[in-house]
């Protein structure tokens, strides 16, 4: 008997009631998600728009937020950000189509990430208002490490991709093939491992800056 047979056999031997059909199990699993609004936090402000709710949640976690009318305004905003933090005018940029045609002005951009990359710019697939989370999926134009190696992680989030709740993202994910990594980023990296006191920038980015844009045109 293989370990697999033994484990599955032991599970079946411990069952008190007869096994049910896959359909019956799936129906019960679905019913366990009924009325999601009864077991999740409401949005604040309840009647406000999702961008407000997202900004409130993300802001409370130490994420900084900036509103821009469109993606063309990004290079100038980045220059200001790098200046403010005393960083060189240099930036790792995600190889996303949305960033391809931008005029970077005085900022030198590159694609390869250094082990101690000071700052990187990425694009979120969507945002979740309930938790103030950004979602990124790995892919040919979306390296995972871009979200983890830099000290400053700057993320462009389109307002029209915002979702109210975690279940809305789960539903979106269920409709597409899973990427290798689907990542919810909820605030800058932090730790409370030394005496419970909170310190930012444990291994991932110590700074998370979100640029909310109305469109990517």
């Amino acid at each position, binding site marked *: 008997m*293989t*370990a*697999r047979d*033994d*484990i*599955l056999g*032991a*599970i*079946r031997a*411990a069952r008190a009631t007869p*096994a049910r059909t*896959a359909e019956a199990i*799936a129906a019960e699993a679905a019913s*366990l*998600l009924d009325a*999601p609004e*009864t*077991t*999740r*936090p409401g949005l604040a402000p309840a009647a406000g728009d999702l961008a407000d709710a997202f900004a409130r*949640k993300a802001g409370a976690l130490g994420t900084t937020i900036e509103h821009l009318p469109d993606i063309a305004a990004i290079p100038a905003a980045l220059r200001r950000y790098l200046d403010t933090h005393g960083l060189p005018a240099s930036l790792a940029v995600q190889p996303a189509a949305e960033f391809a045609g931008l005029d970077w002005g005085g900022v030198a951009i590159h694609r390869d990430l250094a*082990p101690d990359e000071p700052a990187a710019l990425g694009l979120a697939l969507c945002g979740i208002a309930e*938790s103030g*989370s950004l979602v990124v999926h*790995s*892919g*040919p134009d979306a*390296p*995972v*490490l871009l979200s*983890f*190696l830099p000290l400053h992680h700057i993320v462009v989030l389109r307002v029209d991709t915002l979702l109210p709740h*975690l*279940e809305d993202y*789960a539903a979106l*994910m*269920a409709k597409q093939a*899973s990427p*290798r*990594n*689907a*990542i*919810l*980023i*909820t*605030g*800058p*990296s932090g*730790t*409370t*491992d*030394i*005496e*419970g*006191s909170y*310190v930012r920038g*444990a*291994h*991932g*980015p110590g700074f998370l800056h979100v640029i909310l844009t109305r469109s990517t045109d």
Partner: protein
Amino acid sequence: MSHPIPQPSFKARAEAALADRTLKLAIDRTTGTAEAKRAAAVAAFPEFDAARRRGRAIKDHVIAHLDHYLEQFERNATAAGAKVHWARTDAEARAIVTRICLDADAKLVTRAKSMLGEEIGLPHALADAGIERVETDLAEHIIQLAGEAPSHIIWPAMHRTREQVAELFRAGHQPPPAAEDPATMVQSARRALRAKFLGADIGISGANFLVADTGATCTVTNEGNAELTTTPPRIHIVTAGIEKIVPSTAHAFALLRLLVRSATGGELTQYTTFHCGPKRPGDADGPEEMHIVLVDNGRTRMLGDEFREMLRCIRCGACMNHCVVYRQIGGHAYGGTYPGPMGSVLTPVLDGLAGSRDLPNACTLNGRCEEVCPVGIPLPTLLRAWRSRSWREGLEPGTLRAGLGVWAMLARRPALYRLASRIGVRALRLFGRGGWIARLPLAGGWTRYRDMPRPPGRTFMDQYRRTRAQKGGRR
């Protein structure tokens, strides 16, 4: 058994812990914050009770159909390109992981904290195979430098004060940190571990959830060390207990809302990541191979006995943060992988009752753990179940059996009982000084850290009868 209960005995370990003032200080600093933050998070989430009922129902559903979901998970993970392995015991799990490492000729392995990895004794197995292991979670990094085991499932280095961490980092980091404040020390660890992340041959993680309908594993961290562990190396290995299964991503989210609030008082951890198979063709980064080791190690046995409900545990740590015993003695005194109330239920399953029967006894049954458990595990009831099993199996020592035997005999004979307790009360008064009994023969363990009120010289029954007689006259 990967974790034979170390000598000396639990009593001796607890004694030593109680006498260690620095330890008490360290535990208080973290558990105090954790308790306050959890309370605030629950207060800010009026739906918590309903969410808890849902979480409990989801776990019960999965436990009732574990075979179905494990097979579904295996199918989907395999379709995504991962290789799924099954391990009946800790030894089998260690052998599978070690074999993968040796076959890949791995020299350096990074590991993102996983209690299951500790449970199966992975750190020692890697060392025995001559493989360098680097722990990447900050707390695990601290205890690796100290050569210790975790003392808490969420904050493994809870027993260390900042001064002690500074000492370890000064000895272990090049250059040493310039100051002792947590921020400077965190920076120092960030620098020290960067090169290791990028130079590792294999990254090993655990899983908070195994998602059946996608075949993905899910990790949650605050530091971002899991993704830095699982992305750069050529191979990613996941070790996970079979009870970690959830039907879908949406079910995982329902449990995450409970897990994070109960563990740290946050709503979500900074990074919630689903890992589904190895890197896809054309992906910018990611491992070429992904292995998932599904570990039983006593879990299927629990399915059939009175400890089945313990399989709901989502490893949040709230029960230990709220446990008066844990807060006095810390995690190491428990002697197993898992400390606190949940550890006292699990350690006898994992390591055998004979060596750990003191754990279910080291509990005041005050019920705080069950109150805060986000999946409603009746921990005091399960601890009592171990106590009675220990009694049935004759594992209690002779003095206790004899003492309780005499008590049972007397209790069935009321007159004798009253006489015996009067003798006992008088005897106690002999040891009393100033109303408090500071030392008691045969009970030094109790009175060393507590004072027992001196009894009033008459038994309760004596006084009750006197009071009744007085009142009776006036009625």
